């Protein structure tokens, strides 16, 4: 495919323009999906970090976890049948630090489990983002619904819920603060977690969507991402098409001297592949760099999985665009192509 490469080298501007369009569009898509993913982490890292399993809510709760109260007897029985089960509760709230500054938090408590931080009475473990707010290990925090004080025991990474940092506290403290004895949710890890007749059960994904803001937020962001992908697909196709229309005279000459149609296609594909690959590598690099310079507090989280998936989609879309524009070259008579190119 020396000829395809030679053409790119000789007509740099034309291919640079095409490449920068692909670069800009894919970069924008990466950034938006990084934000979508970041917001999703910010909203539900606590739940997203849990392994695959089943979540259970009280049937009367109507699929809303903060209305759910699981009967203690039912809970006891589940724990006997499933030793690895965990019960946990989440409520939004505040703490005041020594300077009386208020911090918004999601209080989380759970039964003894490896999946959640286990905290002694009067102690609290916080998400690392609060450390950046000036809170340190050993600080004393208070809450107006709680008679005692919380001593900060430590910090954990990436534990967020409903856009607030998570605070793990002991079950007894939680029960005092929120005046409930029952737990909200039971989680049983494992693919073959049972369905329990007494409770509503949810997969991880279903449970995420039971978080009120989560669905709405993710739906809009994902829609933006897929719209971007579709629009960029059309842009690709249009640009490849325009480029091939401009080059119709050249294809006419190549056809006239007897070049095979498949060789013309290979030339078009090769150029598309090189341009798209270079543009994608640049925008992957830049979007990864962006995650380091993204302003503090901007939830940006772009996983390599997402990057590869989107890149693959762009490759496929570019391939389709190039192929479609190749078809108009395929069917034209050489002389007609040459004459069109001269106009």
């Amino acid at each position, binding site marked *: 495919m020396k*000829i395809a490469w*030679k*053409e790119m*080298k*000789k*007509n740099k501007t034309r291919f640079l323009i095409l490449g920068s369009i692909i670069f800009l569009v894919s970069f924008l898509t990466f950034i938006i999906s990084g934000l979508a993913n970041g917001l999703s982490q910010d909203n539900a890292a606590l739940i997203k970090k849990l392994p695959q399993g089943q979540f259970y809510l009280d049937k009367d709760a109507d699929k809303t976890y903060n209305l759910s109260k699981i009967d203690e007897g039912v809970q006891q029985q589940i724990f006997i049948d499933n030793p690895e089960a965990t019960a946990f509760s989440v409520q939004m709230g505040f703490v005041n630090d020594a300077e009386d500054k208020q911090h918004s938090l999601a209080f989380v408590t759970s039964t003894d489990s490896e999946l959640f931080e286990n905290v002694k009475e009067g102690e609290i473990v916080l998400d690392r983002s609060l450390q950046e707010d000036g809170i340190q290990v050993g600080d004393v925090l208070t809450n107006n619904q709680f008679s005692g004080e919380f001593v900060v025991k430590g910090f954990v990474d990436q534990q967020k819920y409903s856009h607030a940092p998570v605070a793990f506290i002991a079950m007894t403290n939680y029960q005092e603060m929120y005046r409930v004895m029952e737990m909200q949710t039971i989680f049983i890890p494992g693919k073959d977690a049972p369905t329990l007749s007494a409770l509503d059960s949810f997969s991880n994904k279903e449970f995420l969507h039971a978080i009120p803001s989560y669905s709405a937020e993710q739906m809009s962001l994902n829609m933006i991402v897929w719209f971007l992908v579709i629009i960029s697909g059309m842009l690709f196709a249009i640009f490849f098409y325009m480029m091939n229309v401009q080059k119709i005279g*050249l294809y006419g*000459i*190549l*056809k*006239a*001297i*007897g*070049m*095979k*149609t498949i*060789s013309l296609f290979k030339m078009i594909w090769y150029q598309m592949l090189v341009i798209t690959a270079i543009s994608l590598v640049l925008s992957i690099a830049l979007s990864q760099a962006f995650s380091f310079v993204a302003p503090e507090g901007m939830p940006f989280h772009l996983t390599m999985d997402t990057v590869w998936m989107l890149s693959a989609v762009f490759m496929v879309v570019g391939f389709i665009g190039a192929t479609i524009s190749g078809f108009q070259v395929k069917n034209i*008579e*050489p*002389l*007609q192509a*040459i004459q069109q190119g001269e106009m």
Partner: protein
Amino acid sequence: MSAFIIDEVKKTFSNGEIEEEILKGVNLSLKEGEITALIGPSGSGKSTVLTIAAGLQKASTGEIMFEGKDMTKMSQEEVRHIRATDFGFVFQSSHLVPFLTVAEQLQLMLDVSETKTSKKEQVKAIDEMLKLVEMEHRKEAYPSSLSGGERQRVAIARAIIHRPKILFADEPTASLDTNRSKGVMELLQELTRTLNLTTLMVTHDEEMLPYVDRVITMRDGYIVE
């Protein structure tokens, strides 16, 4: 022996509603080792005959016999293969590939015709061919930096580097001065003899006629001889 026969070829172009018959039944046979010249007034259909014969566009009706087979009945791919291996074509304007150097133009033609000689032999053949058309000093030049006459000589070299059986040339000397034109005609004459080519060319220029073996005159889509 006739290597190439055009039999009752007609060509109709339709511009929207209006159908115009440009070729009204052309009969022509070419002989091996001979240069046949097509002359006639502008618009009489010379280029149309040439491009149809070379398989660059289709005839509306009629037969084109090459080595005993009717090209009008062949598939697109069969015609392409003939164009790549058995035909050479020099256009009215040279139509070189803009992003390839002079040597690369010829290399491309060798690749397209799937010439099976070794790389070394191909490089040598290209050098010899460029020497023949007196272009070896511009081997590495791109078409945009060549004069019209130089481009035309490269186009001729490209049309014969793969040793075709038939050479079609549409006014190959049109953009050249008289001396250069005579040079090109001598070249065509020599190539036709030494390579045993069959050459069909179009020309406007009476001065070129001494170099050809046969002259055929066209008028209004007919051959008037």
